[in-house]
C-alpha cells in the first residue's frame, strides 16, 4: 500500500479532483440539494442589518442598493445581489438601485428580473423599487448624494423625472436611507462607500465583495461597516440565511392568518422550518387544531416546496468548492504521512 502511495501516479489525483468537482455539480444539479452552510458572524451581521433596517424609526425601510460590479465578477457577486434583493422584497423594504459602474444597470436588471419580476410580481415599480441607473464620477457621486441626491440623479433609468416617482417623495439625500447595501468588485466600491457615506453621515452600511478585496475591508468592521460578505463563501452563507428566513417568514404569516398570536407564530414557524419533513405530522397535532385545512396544506407546501434554482446559485457553487478544498487538505496530509513514513524507513535502514 505504502509502495503504491509512494509512487502514486498523479493521474489518480487528477481523477479525484475531477470527481470532487464534477460529482457535486451533477448531484446538486439533478437533485437541487445543497449543503447547509454555517453562517459566520460577518454574514449574520449583514443579514441582521438588512432585517432590522428601519425598525428604529418604526417605518418601512428605504434601502439604497448599489450594485458596483460587471459580468467578469458576476459569478461571485450575483448570488449576493440576488439574495439581497430577495431579502428586501420579502421583508417589504423599498429598494433604490444605483450603480457607479457603467455595466451596473445590466446587473441591476438581472437581479430585478430574477427576483422581483419572477417571484414578487405584486411589487410595483416606482412604489416598491426604483432603478436610478449608472452615474459617472466615482466617489464624487457619493459625496454629492450625501447632500442632495437629485443633483446627481435627475431621472431614473427610464428617463422619468424623480419628482414623478412616488417612492422618491421625502428622499433628498443619503441620510433619508435606513441602510446602504452595496455589492462591489473593485474601485469605485466598498471602500469609497465606507469613507464617503458610512463614516461621513453615520448611515448603517453593509457590503458584499470579491475575495481579493475582502482583506482590505475587514478593518472597518464593525464600526463603519456593519456587515460583510466575502467571495462565493460569503454569498453562500448569506443565501442560506435568507432562504431559511424567507421560508420561516412565509410560514409565520400563514400561522398568523390562522389565528396564532404573533410571537407564537414566529416561534412555531422557526421550529417547523428547521424540521420541514415533520410539518405534515405536526399539522395533525392538537397544537394545529385552530388552523383551517387550507392553511395546513399551504404550510406543508411551504415546507416541502423546493427552493427555486436562482436562490441557490451561491450554495450550488460552494458544493464543488467544499469537496475540492477537502481533497486538497487530504492530499497535503497524505503527502506528509508518506513523507514521514518514508523517512522513518530510511532512518531505520
Amino acid at each position, binding site marked *: 500500500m505504502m509502495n503504491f502511495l509512494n*509512487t502514486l501516479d498523479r493521474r489518480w489525483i487528477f481523477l479525484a479532483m475531477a470527481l470532487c468537482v464534477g460529482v457535486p455539480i451533477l448531484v446538486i444539479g439533478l437533485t437541487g440539494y445543497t449543503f447547509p452552510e454555517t453562517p459566520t458572524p460577518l454574514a449574520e451581521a449583514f443579514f441582521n442589518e438588512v432585517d432590522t433596517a428601519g425598525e428604529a424609526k418604526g417605518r418601512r425601510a428605504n434601502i439604497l442598493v448599489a450594485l458596483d460590479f460587471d459580468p467578469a465578477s458576476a459569478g461571485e457577486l450575483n448570488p449576493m445581489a440576488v439574495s439581497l434583493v430577495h431579502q428586501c422584497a420579502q421583508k417589504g423594504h423599498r429598494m433604490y438601485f444605483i450603480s457607479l459602474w457603467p455595466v451596473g444597470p445590466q446587473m441591476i436588471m438581472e437581479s430585478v428580473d430574477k427576483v422581483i419580476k419572477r417571484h414578487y410580481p405584486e411589487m410595483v415599480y416606482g412604489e416598491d423599487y426604483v432603478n436610478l441607473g449608472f452615474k459617472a464620477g466615482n466617489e464624487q457621486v457619493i459625496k454629492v448624494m450625501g447632500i442632495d441626491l437629485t443633483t446627481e440623479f435627475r431621472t431614473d433609468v427610464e428617463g422619468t423625472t424623480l419628482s414623478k416617482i412616488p417612492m422618491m417623495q421625502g428622499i433628498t439625500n443619503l441620510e433619508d436611507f435606513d441602510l446602504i447595501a452595496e455589492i462591489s468588485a473593485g474601485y469605485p466600491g466598498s471602500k469609497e462607500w465606507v469613507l464617503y457615506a458610512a463614516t461621513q453621515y453615520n448611515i448603517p452600511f453593509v457590503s458584499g465583495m470579491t475575495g481579493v478585496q475582502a482583506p482590505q475591508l475587514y478593518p472597518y468592521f464593525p464600526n463603519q461597516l456593519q456587515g460583510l460578505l466575502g467571495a462565493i463563501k460569503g454569498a453562500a452563507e448569506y443565501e442560506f440565511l435568507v432562504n431559511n428566513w424567507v421560508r420561516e417568514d412565509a410560514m409565520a404569516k400563514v400561522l398568523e392568518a390562522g389565528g396564532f398570536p404573533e410571537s407564537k407564530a414566529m416561534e412555531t414557524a422557526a421550529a417547523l422550518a428547521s424540521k420541514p419533513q415533520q410539518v405534515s405530522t405536526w399539522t395533525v397535532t392538537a397544537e394545529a387544531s385552530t388552523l383551517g385545512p387550507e392553511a395546513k396544506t399551504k404550510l406543508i407546501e411551504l415546507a416541502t416546496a423546493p427552493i427555486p434554482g436562482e436562490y441557490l446559485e451561491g450554495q450550488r457553487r460552494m458544493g464543488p468548492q467544499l469537496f475540492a478544498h477537502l481533497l486538497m487538505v487530504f492530499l497535503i496530509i497524505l503527502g506528509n504521512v508518506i513523507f514521514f513514513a518514508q523517512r522513518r524507513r530510511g532512518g531505520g535502514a
Partner: protein
Amino acid sequence: MSAVSEPMSPRQRATWAVILGVCIILIVIRCFIGEGMGKVYVEPTNLQFGELSADTWKSMDQSEFATFVASNPDAATEQWTQYDSVPPSAYFEQQQQGGGGSIFLSWPRTIGLWLAAFFTLAIYSFLYRDNPFYKFAESVVVGVSAAYAMVVGFWDTIVPNLIQRLLPQFAHDHLTPGMTLPTDAAQFNNLIFLLPLALGIMLLCRLVPKGAWMSLWPLAFIVGTMAGLRIVGYTEGDLLSQVRDTISPVYVPGADTSTPFMAVWTTIWSSVAACLLVIGVLCCLVYFFFSVEHKGAVGGVARVGIWYLMITFGAAFGFTVMGRIALLAARFEFLFDDWLWLIDPNQKRALVETVSMLMCL
C-alpha cells in the same frame, strides 16, 4: 510520487479503460433519450434601415419600412436578418403550441457547441497523457489564437491609433464612420504618429535578411522609453508608497472596549499585529540584502524574513485555490448543462427536466 510518470501497470491501465468506457457508454445512452442534447436554437429578426438624409439612417419596423420605400423610391435602404440564440425552452414551447413559429435549430451553432465540447474534452485528455486529440486541439488553439491576436491588434490598435490619425478621411468613409474628423490643427499634431509608423516599418525589415539590424532601432526605442517610464513609476508607486504605508504606530488601542479586560486584551492583540507587520517588512528587506552573506546575526534576521515569505506564499496559494476550482466548475457546468443537458440550474429547458431524472435512476 515519482517525478516522471512511470509506465502504468496493466491493472491500472485496465482501470482507466473501464472508466473511459463507462463514460462513453453513458454519453451514448444520453444521446438517445429525451429531447436529445447539445442543440442551439435561434430566432431571426428582420432589420430594415432607410436613409433619411445624407448619412442619417433610421432603423424601421416592417410596416414603417414599407411606407418609407413607397414614399421615397430613390432613398437608399439596407436590410438584413439577425439571428439571436434563444433558450431551448422557447423552442419546446413553440412546438407544444403546434409549431409554426420562427424559432429553429441553428446548425452552425449546434456544430460549434459540439466542437467546443470536443475541444474541452480533448484538452482534458492531456491530463492522462499526450495524445492525438490533444495535439489537434493544441494546433487549433495556436493557429486560431495567433490570428485572433492579429485581428484584434489590427481593428483595435492599428485602425484607431494609426489609420484614424494619419488617414482620417479614409477611416471615416470606410472603417469607422462614427469617428469625428479632426480639425486641421489637430491633424497637424497627429503627424507625430508617422514616427511609430516609420519604426514599425523598420521592425518589419527583420523579414529581409540584410535589414535585420534595422529592427534594433525600434527595439532600442521601446526598451529605452519603457525603462525611463518604469523607473519613475516604480519608485513612486511601489517604493515610496509601500514605505509610506508601513509607517504607522505599533501601539493600537483595541476596538472592543466592552470590559476593561477585553480593552487591554484587544489592545495587546492589535498592537502585536502591528509590530509583527513592521518586523516582517524589515526582516524580509534584510533577506534581500546582497552585500552580506546570510551568516550570524544577519543570517538569523534573514531567516525570519524567509519565514515571513513562506507564510506569504502559503497564504497566497491557499487563497488562489478557490478561484481555480471555480474555473473548473464552470467548465464542468458547460459540459453538463449546455452540452449534455443533464442539469438545468438556470431553467433553460424546463420541459426536459424529466430526462435528467431518468438518467439519475
